[in-house]
Every structure is written in structure tokens, then in C-alpha cells.
């Protein structure tokens, strides 16, 4: 009976591989990039799925632009651009349900404006004013720092986040990518008003900014609004930041103490810088290891019953990718889980994958991409990242082609290099064991 079902299933696959094939560029409306009359680049994508608009203003200053000892500066400065000084103005936005938020990532910071499309002009009028003329005062800086301390502390209550932060700090010690996004007690104490003003002046200029807009509105009116309300950014100086490569620390084991019921057990590996082929391979490796039933790590859950949560995730920077593969297991099983994870990764590195598994992983990876970019706000994050990494906004379509182009030999060579134990870190977060360091 089982064999019969499989036959049917394979027949379905064969039929599915007919003329429609795998979509190369699945978007009904592809994104277009142009330069506004103000000199700012703008990526526009029409999406009539809902009567809402998302606008992202991306600045080149992310964590990579944070100097030594000033952890949190990128977040703090970007947050200050969203302070609304005028109560009436704030009330207008609130009553229209316009949402302002921010992202502070490895290579960029972004201000996000989300609104009902009918209110876009008012949203841009207010945000244009506050972002181009932010009130960077001692009082506001002080208040924002207090908020950041709280955010930083609550990150420690999640093992996966605490592990990720520790990994980034280990690979990128000192300034830049390894800094804490919300800062530390010491770094926040060290940041003063002139640091925030300097950061703002450097990165919120024409040389360091671009827009991404996903909306049901037509391109012309949207461009006109952006030109009308965001016309005052200065030309600015060079915003390029030296690209810092990750360094392997002398100590390859990170152990954080947390008195939890489960222990996080993970391995962090270095991936090559994300040009289109390497980004596709990194994405395939992430999908191969994690992302649900049938993945390599899934066996640790299903067959070995070691965990509920198993997954893999890549953080991309301009210089590299950082792959984290992990599971969260009952404390008593942590040694066994660590051994099983190492075994799974070693087996994959040693033997590589067969052709069928590559085909399956490609299908899964492309479908995952479609799902993750279905909603406007999540698509904005992906397009913004591709643009900042130099892959371009159209990589949202191009990545499908890049995935299809990966050969079995390429992929296995990539896996062998990526999972080399001598280029990776082991991470645990859980109850203290002899020899562990405290967080």
C-alpha cells in the first residue's frame, strides 16, 4: 500500500514538471528602480493585494557603522528620527493608523512607514518632516537609551537570541557587526549627543539612502509624493564603510548560563560573502539543514527525539554569511544532543548530498522564498537586504535563477567548506556545567 501511494505521488510530480515548470520570476509585478528628482534612488513595486502601502527608507549605516565602544549608536540614531515633536502631528498619524517603526540590521538601518494607502500623503508629509529634521536632544537621547536597556535585557530571556548575539560578537569582536544592537550599559553611557548627530549627518544623506515602496497605488503619484516631502536631504559625504571579515576566535566554544528547562545546542559556521551564486548556495544550505519536516536536522527531532525546536538560520553581511544550526533539548539530553548535532553536520560535510536531495531542497527553498515575500512588509525586508548587499532589488526574481543554476558539484564543495569544524563555533545556552562561563 505504501508503495502505491508513492507511485501516485511521483506521478503527480512528473505532471507538475510540465510546461509551467518552476517560476523564474513569479511576481505579477516586478520591482522597478529609478532615481527621484531629488536624487534619491527608489525601488517601486505595485501590489494590489490590499489597500495598504509600505515605504522603507534605508540608510547605509547599520551595525557595521558603529565605532568601537559605541554599541547601539545606529539603533539610537535611527530611533531618534522617528520622534514626533508636535502633538497634533502625532495625533494625525495615530488617527489614520499609520505605523512608524525601524529596523537596525548588520549593514543598514531602515525607517518603515506602513499605512492605509488613502493616508499615504499625510504619512509622508509628517515623516518627511521629522526624518529630515530630527530633534536630537539630550532629553530624547536619555529616554531612548533607557528604552534600549530594557530591550537589551529582554533579549537575554530568549536562548536563541542570546546565542545569536554571542556568535556575532565572537566572529566580529570590537566594532561593527559584533556590537549589541541595543548597546550595553557601558556603551550607552559613552554615547553622547554629538555622536548621534554625526551618525545622522553621515548616513541620512543622498549618498546613503534609498526607498523601497510596495503599494496598490500607481508609480507616478507615489514618486511625486516622495519628491515633494523628502527633498531636503543633503548630498552628503562618502558613506562607504570598510568591509570587515569575520575572524575565528581562539576559543571555539561559547557557553552561556541560563537556568532553563531546555538547553540550546548549536553550531555557527562561516559562509562566503554573498554574491549571487554564494547567496543562493547559503540559502540552500540553510533550507537543507532546517525549515521543517524532511530537513537534515529534522531527524534529531523525529528519529532521535532530542528536541521540539530544530532549525538553521543564516545572517548575511557584506563580508560573509553566518550559519547557525541548532536544537533546544531537555537539559539531561544536552550532551547527547550536542553529539548528535556534530554527527549530523559531520556526515553532511563528509558525504555531501545526492542529486535528488538537491532537487528537493531547491524546490523547498524557492517555495519558502515565495511565502516569505507574500506580504508587503516582509518583502520590504528582503528587497532592502538584497539591495544593500549589492545583489540588487531584482534579485528577488534573480535568486530563483541563481538557485536553479547551482550544480551538485558546486553545492557539495560549498557544504564541505562551510561545515568544516575548524571554521566554526560551538554554542550552548542552559544550566551551568563545570567550566562554563556565565553570561
Amino acid at each position, binding site marked *: 500500500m505504501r508503495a502505491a501511494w508513492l507511485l501516485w505521488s511521483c506521478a503527480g510530480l512528473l505532471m507538475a514538471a510540465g510546461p509551467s515548470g518552476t517560476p523564474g520570476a513569479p511576481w505579477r509585478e516586478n520591482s522597478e528602480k529609478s532615481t527621484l528628482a531629488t536624487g534619491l534612488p527608489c525601488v517601486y513595486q505595485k501590489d494590489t493585494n490590499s489597500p495598504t502601502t509600505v515605504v522603507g527608507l534605508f540608510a547605509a549605516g547599520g551595525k557595521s557603522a558603529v565605532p568601537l565602544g559605541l554599541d547601539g549608536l545606529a539603533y539610537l540614531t535611527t530611533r531618534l528620527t522617528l520622534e514626533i515633536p508636535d502633538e497634533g502631528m502625532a495625533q494625525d498619524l*495615530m488617527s489614520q493608523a499609520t505605523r512608524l517603526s525601524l529596523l537596525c540590521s548588520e549593514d543598514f538601518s531602515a525607517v518603515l512607514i*506602513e499605512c492605509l494607502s488613502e493616508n499615504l500623503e499625510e504619512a509622508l508629509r509628517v515623516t518627511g518632516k521629522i526624518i529630515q529634521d530630527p530633534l536630537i536632544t539630550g532629553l530624547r537621547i536619555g529616554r531612548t537609551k*533607557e528604552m534600549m536597556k530594557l530591550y537589551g535585557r529582554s533579549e537575554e530571556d530568549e536562548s536563541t537570541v542570546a546565542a545569536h548575539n554571542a556568535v556575532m560578537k565572537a566572529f566580529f569582536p570590537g566594532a561593527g557587526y559584533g556590537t549589541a544592537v541595543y548597546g550595553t550599559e557601558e556603551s550607552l553611557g559613552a554615547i553622547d549627543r554629538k555622536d548621534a548627530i554625526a551618525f545622522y549627518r553621515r548616513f541620512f544623506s543622498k549618498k546613503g539612502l534609498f526607498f523601497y515602496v510596495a503599494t496598490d497605488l500607481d508609480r507616478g503619484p507615489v514618486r511625486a509624493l516622495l519628491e515633494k516631502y523628502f527633498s531636503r536631504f543633503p548630498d552628503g559625504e562618502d558613506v562607504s564603510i570598510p568591509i570587515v571579515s569575520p575572524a575565528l576566535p581562539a576559543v571555539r566554544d561559547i557557553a552561556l548560563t541560563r537556568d*532553563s528547562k531546555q538547553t540550546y545546542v548549536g553550531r555557527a559556521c562561516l559562509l562566503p560573502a554573498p554574491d549571487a551564486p554564494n547567496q543562493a548556495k547559503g540559502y540552500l544550505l540553510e533550507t537543507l539543514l532546517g525549515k*521543517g*519536516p524532511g530537513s537534515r536536522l529534522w531527524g534529531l527531532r523525529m528519529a532521535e527525539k532530542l528536541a521540539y525546536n530544530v532549525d538553521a538560520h543564516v545572517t548575511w553581511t557584506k563580508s560573509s554569511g553566518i550559519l547557525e544550526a541548532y536544537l533546544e533539548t*531537555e537539559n539531561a539530553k544536552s550532551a547527547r544532543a550536542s553529539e548528535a548535532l556534530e554527527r549530523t553536520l559531520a556526515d553532511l560535510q563528509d558525504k555531501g548530498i545526492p542529486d535528488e536531495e538537491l532537487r528537493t531542497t531547491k*524546490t523547498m527553498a524557492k*517555495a519558502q522564498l515565495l511565502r516569505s515575500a507574500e506580504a508587503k512588509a516582509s518583502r520590504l525586508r528582503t528587497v532592502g537586504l538584497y539591495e544593500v548587499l549589492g545583489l540588487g532589488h531584482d534579485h528577488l526574481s534573480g535568486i530563483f535563477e541563481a538557485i536553479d543554476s547551482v550544480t551538485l558539484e558546486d553545492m557539495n564543495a560549498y557544504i564541505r567548506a562551510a561545515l568544516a569544524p575548524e571554521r566554526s563555533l560551538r554554542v550552548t545556552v542552559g544550566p551551568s556545567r563545570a567550566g562554563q562561563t556565565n553570561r
Partner: protein
Amino acid sequence: MRSYLTVTAGLLAGVMSAALLLAVGPENPGKYFVLENGMRVFLYEKRDLPLLHVVTGFDVGSKNETDGTSGLVHLLEHCILFRGTSVRSGAEVSADIRRHGAYFNGNTGQDISAFEISLPSEHAEFALRNQKNILFGLDLSQPELDEEKEVLLEEYNQMEDDPQRNAVDLVLQALFPGHPYGRSVYGRREVIRAATAGEVLGFYRKYFVADNCALAVVGDFATADMERLVRDVFGLLPKTGLRLEPLPMTVPLKKSVSQRFERDVREGYVFLGFVAPDYNHADQYAMNVLAEVLGRGVNPLLPALLRGERDSVQTVSMSYLAFRFGGAALVSIKMDPKDMATIQRAAVGYLKRAHNEAYSKKDFTGEAEIFAFDYLESAKNQIRFAVGQAEESGLQLAGSLARHLLLNTRDKPGRYLDEIGRVDSSDLRKTAARYLGKGEYVAVSIVPRKGEKQ
């Protein structure tokens, strides 16, 4: 409970489920029909991307358990997803899922168990046949069950390490004492450990039948083709005649409850719970708007008040969970642990007085009307925005449709956004008085262990 992703939001975002179905406009009304075996079906075309989203819901949740079976529905959900059928092993199901590029998951709640699959639309037939096979063809041996129990107990541990998921579960247990909603959806460890395959399959055979099921399909398809496929795949399932007796409605809490738990956390967490209207109650619309006004919108009243009280308040949010036989209004606050007592007092005090608030410009006269902020209008816009966002996600839309098909008991519930549009300031005050002002409440706080460094 999500079966392989940690999703706290699932518990905290029940508020929009009715919204989605009823927000569907006349230009794309979808198609509703009932198969001869009683299965309810809703098809909705969303053709912007070549994706298909299928959610199959069953009218069985922790509400159908007893103390002796608490946790079996959740255990069943895991087994159905991952332990195979009479024609495929669990590993074969997983491999098939992956081969078709599918996201595959399930969740168990108080009322409903839901199973979802989302994949490229070219694999529509696989999606429906796969779901039929796993949902109506479970074959479970004792060793397979025992394996899945270990995974489930890991989820239990994870939930207890997550202050938010843990607190929501505890609030709901304390809010509905003596009612089936007062049982944890995660169940009891000892029941899970002792469960036998025979017991689990008995439960399964009773509830996992076509006439206790709703199917929602959203995505890139032509409705007529999809209807033919649905009838072909599910039409021959037998009708069992299952009739579930309605449960009693939840009753107001007689006395407030306060619970405090120590964990290895850096922040302090307070969760407040009030009994709220059920899914079909006329007050649900006002309760939705009230939750937006007080704790969900761009600048809701409660966070503003609490942050004015103490700078250390990090996040405040309010959500409304509408169940079939009751509801819960939940407030969650994250803050510096040293300020918890003050903040909890301020929050409860404010909620108890919320029926005195002026929510709309129309509550004022003369010059005051010009300067007053219209919280009511703002909340309505928030809901319109949230509905718009939800329309972008096919899986979320399908989940809401399946839920609505199972929970709705009204003949003509009306279009959701129209009902929201009719809510006025006086409705908000009446609702606040009825559910927050007079009602007792549950407070659960999770604090750092004594002696731990802040």
C-alpha cells in the same frame, strides 16, 4: 500549539479571525459549499503569486478533553502530522512534503485543531490528497506514539521556558475554573506519558470525521476547477452523524486571582485576564475596538498611562481571544521587575475605570471637540489596516476562514468591517463596564528568581 515553530502570536492574535472572512468584498466573494458528508468548504481565489494555502480545521480542542485526557488532542495533532498513515510512514510523509516545497504545520487550541499546508499552486492535487491521507488515515502504533510523546514533552519544556507563552496558558487556566477552557491546551504531563495508542485512536476516530471538519483553500486557482478537485478528493469520506453537545458558556470569575512564578528571566512579566464575550456575541465588535483603543493601536491608552507611571515599562499590549463558548481579554506588560506591583495596580485600576473614558470627539462639545483625540476613529482605522495586512497572507486568510466556518453560529453575521464601523463610543463604555469594570480578573506575574542579577 504550533507543532514545530514557536509562535506565541497564535494565542495572542485570535481577534482578527472573524474579520478576515467577513472583510471579503463583493468583487471576490469566494465560494462556500457543504459536501454531502457534511464537510464545510470555502474557496477563495488569491492569484498574485503561484501559491496555494489549505487549512483543514476540526471542531475538537482542549474543550473536548477531561482531566483524564488532558493533552490528548495536542498529542493527536503531533501524531497526525508526523507519525504516518496506513499507506505512508511519518518519514515518507515528511519527504513528500519537502519534495513539493510545502510548509506544513498544525495547531491545537481551546476550540479547534487546525492543519495547514502551503505550497506552489502547481501541486494543488498533492496538497489536498496529502491532507486527506494524514487527517483521515492515521495509523498509530504504541512505539510511534511513545516517540512522539518525547517530542511533545520537549515542547512542554520550551513553553515553560518562554515567559509569555507560559503566562498566557496560566491566565486562561485561572480565568475559567471548572470550565473545559480552564484546562491547559498543552495538557498534563502525566496524561501524555501514560497515553496508549488505543486511547488516542479512540479519540481520533470520534472527532476526525468529515462532518466535524471545515476546509478552506486560498490561492492561485480557478474556483470551478478547485471545487471539482475538492469534491473528488474529500467527497467520498463517510458521514458519521457526529453531533457534539454544546458546552455551557463561561461565567464571570467570582473572585480575583493573583499568581506569581519565579523563572530565570531578566525582565518582569505581568499578564492580566478578564472574561470577555464569545465568538458569536454581539459585543465582540465593541470588544475588538476596545482592545485596539486600550492596548493594540499606534498609541493606545493603556501603554501611555503606564509609561507615564514608570519609564521602565517596555511593552504593553491587549488582545481579545474569542472562543465558541466564552472569551478572554488579555493584557500583557513587560517591565523592570522592581516596578511590577505599582504597574499592576495602575493597570487594573485603569481598566476598572475604562467605562468612564471619552473615546470619541463626539463625547466633547464646543472647543474641546476640536482638540480632543478621536481614539474610536483611530482604532477603526487600525482594524481596517490590520484586515488589509491579513489579506496579503494567504495562509493566515485560510486559517481564519476555517476557524470561522467552525465557530460561527449566526445565520447572517454581517460584513465585519461594517459591524466595526457601527461601534460608537457609548458601546465601548458599556463593553468596558460589562467585562472590565465589574468583572474580577486574573493576574499572573513572572519574575526573576531571588538573588539573580538584574
